[in-house]
């Protein structure tokens, strides 16, 4: 069979010689031509960094987290370029954009999990409550304790539900059973998992369903008493019902935590977030209140993306 396939490919290539092997990073060269000129995106593709279209409403908020011309390299590859944005306190900020545009990288830079990857370099700065997180005096461990992180796939640890939730306290050396119990209950309540899990705290966390596992991970993040919650597509591995529960949960956490959420789901962004940032190839394109971004964005490129004309 392999010989047949090779032949087919050659013939196909011969029939459409103009079509390049479409790399994922260069969507606009593909067949479905955008309806109007996307000059900004074309400029970005050429390697330029046009300034971000930031709405004034964002600047009016009290900023918890500020990125200043932040850039990141994986070895020689530039994954983020001059990202300047302020994440408002107590609100949900959604990051949208096509795959590979650096949303996850951005979120992972905020708690410096990217440090673990060999060959990562930063430029610019990120300020948490006015202090640089890259300051040599900053303890990375302490920094991460101020931020909870929820990943794409639920990643409960191979231990009991109870131990999972109190893990952030355990690593701080907390041994007081009463204090651990209290933290566990509070975190599970916060993650809307207490009613389902309270009778089976000793069971393995892996015995929970996928949606429960993700809420357990949220509970674990909450148990550490963070200021910022970083969510990297928290619902991408879940079914609609579990997604709905997580979204309700995010809604209920507003006002207490500053949340930065990556999502591919436009509806989710409109339902849950207060502000939305549109990213493209490592650059921030437009950043403003969710309602405006989705209904009346300033840039035609943003409109094309949120209405599904490309991406």
């Amino acid at each position, binding site marked *: *069979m392999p010989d*047949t396939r090779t*032949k*087919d490919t050659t*013939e*196909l290539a011969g*029939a*459409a010689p*103009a*079509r390049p092997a*479409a790399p*994922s990073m260069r*969507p606009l060269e*593909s*067949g*479905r031509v955008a309806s109007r000129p996307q000059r900004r995106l074309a400029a970005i593709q050429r390697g330029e960094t046009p300034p971000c279209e930031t709405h004034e409403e964002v600047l009016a908020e009290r900023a918890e987290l500020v990125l200043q011309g932040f850039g990141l390299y994986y070895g020689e590859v530039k994954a983020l370029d001059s990202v300047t944005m302020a994440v408002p306190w107590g609100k949900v900020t959604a990051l949208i954009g*096509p*795959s590979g545009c650096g949303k996850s990288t951005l979120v992972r830079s905020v*708690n410096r*999990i990217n440090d*673990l990857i*060999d060959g990562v370099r930063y430029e610019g700065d990120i300020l948490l409550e006015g202090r640089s997180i890259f300051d040599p005096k900053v303890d990375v*461990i*302490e920094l*991460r*304790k101020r*931020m*909870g*992180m929820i*990943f794409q*796939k639920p*990643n*409960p*640890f*191979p*231990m009991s539900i109870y131990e999972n939730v109190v*893990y*952030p306290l*355990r*690593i*701080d050396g907390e041994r007081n059973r009463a204090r651990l119990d209290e933290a566990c209950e509070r975190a599970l309540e916060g993650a809307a998992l207490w009613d389902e899990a309270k009778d089976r705290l000793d069971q*393995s966390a*892996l*015995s929970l*369903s*996928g949606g429960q596992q993700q809420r357990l*991970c949220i509970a*674990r*993040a909450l148990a*550490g008493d963070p200021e910022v919650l*970083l969510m990297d597509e928290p619902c991408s591995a879940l079914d609609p019902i579990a997604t709905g529960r997580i979204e309700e949960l995010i809604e209920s956490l507003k006002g207490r935590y500053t949340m930065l959420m990556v999502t591919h789901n436009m509806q989710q962004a409109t339902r849950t977030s207060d502000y939305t940032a549109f990213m493209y190839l490592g650059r921030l394109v437009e950043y403003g209140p969710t309602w405006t971004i989705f209904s009346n964005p300033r840039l035609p490129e943003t409109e094309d993306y949120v209405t599904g004309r*490309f*991406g």
Partner: protein
Amino acid sequence: MVDAPATRRGAPVPRRRRAGGATSLLATGEPMLWLTGGGMLISVAMIVGLLALVAYQGLATFWPRPIVRVETLSGDVLMGEVTRRDAYEPGEQAFHGLPVELAPAVRAVVKAEGGWDRRRLVRTGNFELTGEHFRWVSDFEIAPGGERQPEWALLFERRAWGRFYGEPRRFLVDGEAVATEPAAVWARFEEHHAPVRRRWAERRALEIDDVGEINHRLEAARLAQRTAELRQGPESRAFREAEARFAATETEVDEEFARIRERIEELDRENARYAIAVETSAGTEQELSLADIVRAYPANQLGALERAGVYLSRWWEFLSADPREANSEGGVFPAIFGTVVMTLLMALTVLPFGVLAALYLREYAKAGLLTSAVRIAVNNLAGVPSIVFGVFGLGFFCYIVGGQIDQLFYAAKLPSPTFGTGGILWASLTLALLTLPVVIVATEEALAAVPGSMREGSYACGASKWQTIRRIVLPRAMPGIMTGMILAMARGAGEVAPLMLVGAVKLAPELPVDGIFPFLHAERSFMHLGFHIFDLGFQSQNSEAAKPMVYTTTLLLISIIAFLNLAAIALRTRLRRRFVAAQF
């Protein structure tokens, strides 16, 4: 992100299928099924075949067989157990032993059979009288009607000289015959044998435990004196005091020795009163002292149940007693003990070192040329012949490390070495070195298999690297690490060659663990089942008798390794249960 369908660019090109493509042999996958299945079948057949051979031969060793009495044409009478039979082509000299007048007729008969005949190997025992343990008897040698199973043929297993076959004639107490009928003699024997054996066991316990304890005390006093001499000099007060203490101990010990010797002589005297007179098939009468007889039974009178009794009692002796007759008879308890203790010591040493090394290689070391070189070196270590490890163990552990330890702590005992020679500790360390690659490779695999998402989750909670390793990575990798330990134990327990250099001996006077402080004597040499197999198979004078024991010992060694592995697997299963996701 849009991939333009090819249809927009031009006419669609129909994908052509090769005729019969879906039904070709390779597409259906049938040949691969047969290939893989066949491969598995061959592997299973080899393994099962080996195990079945060992199990069959090993389990049959202790089964009591009937005793046959054979009269040959040349007038010899033999009595014993038939151990095996085979067909062979007798050469011309095979007929030389026959009486001259019968030889041509026999030759003709054998020739009529195509020159082939059957023969049997008879274990005749009675080595001190005949000078042989076994004898081949060809079928043509046997006189007509010259083969029967005498009712009162007895088999004696003795402490020395191997087995004895004969028929009971008289039972002697203080040299006087108290019974002459076979049945009465046998009844007397059964009545007296158990008490005699009990006295003998008591005597042996005195000889080994009590005398051993006294010797130990005396040795301790002598060492104290020598230490004082070395440290303070022969003119010092400390030395004088130690000398006086040694002298006192010596007198004390002499008294105890005398007491024990007296008790031993008393037991010996009592035991020497009983003897049984047995007539061999050749008509010689031999007196056997009851104390020398380990076990006796009338082989041709036993029912199935009694046979099973003899069988089990032999197994029990095999598992629990010390060896005798240059290891070819008796038990292998010291070897079992040595094997298990050495394997456990090895596992205890190899596990922490292997896991630490693998942790560094996988978690801390930066990927680079040096790390790769170390990893390749570790893997190559697994290919080094085991005897090389033995040589290294002897040179490094025994002579250099052990020699230094002796210089520093056991100077009083020199020139006789304590740690400076082969011992169970050095053997364990040598084997730990040998099995280190197995543990390192398995642990590295297990660490690599821990999902990165779990590590990230832990780091995101603010855990440090070591906290992540200890709380998340290691528990998660534990089943894989256990697999490495199981493989290492299986490899180490079956290894023989390096042990010969670093401490395994044919006969160890003392077990490495006993009741004398400090209980685990890591410097002592030890017996090992693997070495025992080698010794039985290739170093035994009575190799024919040792052969079935080789199978039995092999069976035992395999069983012990299987048991150790099963224990480790059970532990691993318990650990693994925590990581099984019962999703939805």
